[in-house]
């Protein structure tokens, strides 16, 4: 009887119960190992039979990777904490409201029940050519199918393209950058703590990866310092559908006011480059200024400097401008 090999390709499954065991398995299997969190990114690849790992290390049984705890003057969120848990956690909601807002904007309720915050920030690019198995630069080939005269690039990058024009799809990533979060990474050499904005990389650094993680590395937790606890937050995601859609562009801002002026601010956007973009120049320009229409207009114009739209994503330029304006204003334009 014929055996039809049209299912998810077979792999050897490991379900470690500790971070140490997970790291040991990663070390043993090296680049052959695929680390599985909630599975929302992984199973997409597997079902399309585009990624065929020999070994899958499922982190679902590692209890120390789950949950929210206090850490120093802030909090630490285990990488395997689900997006739903992030959305519902009372302390996060009270002090770091921008993060549950961003997490709740991700995907759909069912996906948030399964998807983890570690997976959300570490997920791969969603460019439909790349995800469709086209042999593009990011997949190891020598062409970007989205960046051709006929390429379909409505969802693609307007900044920092380097052969690849895919964008980072995460909703929580800009919120974490706005909160000045730290990513806790276990490597074979020990623990490494990285600023959220430095966790993500563009194609100029490594075209095959979205984060600094190498084979053998594991994102274990995300620490949020108290620096921005209770600040004025703004998060907005523009997408085609009201639910279950990636952002066309999203924006996240944390702001502290003093005497009617912006005393300090962190501002990040996503969906415009292969990595979430912290808008440092805008931050510097608005400090000391009121949250006025004039400041917002200046910030919006500054945010789009250097944008290089492709054939079908020119709308992202005014969209980014307007979202940054809204973040500075704290609202949509009023009558």
């Amino acid at each position: 009887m014929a055996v039809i090999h049209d299912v998810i390709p077979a792999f050897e499954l490991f379900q470690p119960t500790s971070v140490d065991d997970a790291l040991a398995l990663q070390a043993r299997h090296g680049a052959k190992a695929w680390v599985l969190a909630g599975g929302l990114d992984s199973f997409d690849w597997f079902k399309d039979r585009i990624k065929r790992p020999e070994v899958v290390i499922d982190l679902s049984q590692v209890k120390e990777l789950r949950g929210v705890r206090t850490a120093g003057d802030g909090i630490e969120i285990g990488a395997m904490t689900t997006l739903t848990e992030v959305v519902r956690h009372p302390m996060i909601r009270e002090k770091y409201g921008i993060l549950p807002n961003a997490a709740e904007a991700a995907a759909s309720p069912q996906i948030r029940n399964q998807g983890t915050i570690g997976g959300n920030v570490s997920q791969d690019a969603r460019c439909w050519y790349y995800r469709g198995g086209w042999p593009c630069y990011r997949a190891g080939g020598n062409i970007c199918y989205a960046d051709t005269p006929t390429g379909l690039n409505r969802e693609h990058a307007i900044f920092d393209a380097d052969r690849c024009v895919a964008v980072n799809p995460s909703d929580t990533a800009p919120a974490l950058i706005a909160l000045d979060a730290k990513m806790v990474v276990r490597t074979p050499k020990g623990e490494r703590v990285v600023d959220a904005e430095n966790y993500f990389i563009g194609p100029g650094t490594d075209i095959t990866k979205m984060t600094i993680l190498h084979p053998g590395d594991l994102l274990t937790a995300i620490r949020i310092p108290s620096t921005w606890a209770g600040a004025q937050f703004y998060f907005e995601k523009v997408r085609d559908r009201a639910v279950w859609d990636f952002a066309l562009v999203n924006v996240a801002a944390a702001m502290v006011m003093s005497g009617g002026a912006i005393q300090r601010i962190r501002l990040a956007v996503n969906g415009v480059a292969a990595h979430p973009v912290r808008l440092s120049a805008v931050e510097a320009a608005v400090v000391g200024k009121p949250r006025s229409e004039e400041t917002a207009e200046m910030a919006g114009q500054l945010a789009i400097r250097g944008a290089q739209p492709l054939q079908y994503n020119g709308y992202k330029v005014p969209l980014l401008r307007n979202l940054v304006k809204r973040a500075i204003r704290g609202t949509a334009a009023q009558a």
Partner: protein
Amino acid sequence: MMRISREEENYIGRGRPSLHGRMKVGFSKEGRITALDMYVICDNGPYDMVGDAFSSGRIVSVLYQPQTMRWRSVTVLTNTPPRSAQSSPGGMQGIAIMEPILAKAARKLGVDQVALRRVNCPEGKAPFGPLVGGKQQYATSAFIKEALDRGAEQFKWNERKVGTGKRNGSKVRGVGVSISCYSGGTTGFDGLFIIKPDGRVYIQSGVGNLGTESWTDVHRVVAELLGVPWEKCDITWGNTSKNLPWTCPSGGSQTTHAMTRAAHAVASDAILKLQQIAAKDMGGKPEDYVVANERVSRKGGGPGMTLAHAAQRAIQLGGAYDGHELPADINKFTVTSATALAGQGLLAVAKDKYPHDGNTFSFVATFAEIEADVETGQYHILDFLAYADVGTVLHPKALGGQILGRSTLGIGHAIGQKWVYDQQYGLAVSRRFHHTKPPTILDIPDKMAWGAVEIPDPETPIGSRGIGEPPVGGGCAAILNALSDALGDEIFRRAPVTSDVILASLEAGRPAQDPLRSNI
């Protein structure tokens, strides 16, 4: 077991063929369409020809009643994923192309949007299309004027249209109205049931269940005509091995119309047989008897018998009464089924041979209100009403579900549903629902309502027409018209209208879409 990937499913499932069109429309100052020149190009995909282009001309002709019309089309084979008919094939696309032109014309002419549709919409036995065999085709009936009037009143159109298009901060509101129609019924199918000696009615239903419950609803006609409580009717369905009659397929919005006619025919056959049995046993002529309240009784009082007793007598009489003799005109499938069921009681079997003058269409007047945000290009639907002209309402809840369900399909085409394939390689890059973007539960309108004019169609005994496909075009076009009311006529050139289209056009001050480039 064969498993298929989502990518393969896109090929097997197929998609609605897109129509690119050019319409040149002449209006009188009152808004009446004096001339219409319609030219559409249908992207057919690689396989057998779809009928969408032809259908678009037919529906535009019947729905807008142009005084003169030229229709041309080209259906082009393309190296793209396969296409096939999707609900309201061609009709939906024709309406979606035509309606924004009507909306623009109304604004240019200073004519109210509802009034402009009112002067153009069909009425009564409205003519349409070219001559066929030298004869003008026409609708069995059309009462969409009544749907527009009642819908406008329920939607408070005159109040809502005031102040639209004015920006309030980044927000702007718009209202839209659209008319739509599609074919609503066929004829010539069979009905089959048995009244058994236990007094119950055993109905054989060949209707497929698409979730619309028409597999049972159409047979309420039998219960009503026989005067039998619905609780005493048993329906057998779901498998042709269960001796079912020749039945229309579940497509083309035909079931309600076709199978209520067949139900009426077979109930009439049962009544005649009951009257004959009564006359044989109790004297007089068959027409002296009436069937009601589970009995066949002499008119004006007097002797009678229960249906249970009549069923016993039918078995004793045999022949046509218990199904051992069958009418010559029923379908051979029905013959097989009736033969298998013969001898169990009074067997009723008949073909729908009722006269039917004209082509059956159902109509919908659709109203929508949207609010758009000019800073993000996003918009959402505040309110939605679809008012249908479908003849007699068979089952209000099921009808409402159908009207709003198919409207939602049209809304999906307006707000986001699409298929994306690479122009160079002809391959679909949209392989997931988050690429093709069917509407989610949060995308449907905040408020949705429906209504029905409930004027029976004169060309069918029950008066009911089908409702499946007619709302689709209206669901799409009412949203498109509300968008142009809010944002102006120079925003979009095709559907769906997504935030990128709105933002890019607002930024450029002109339509940003290349009208002949789609699927991006």
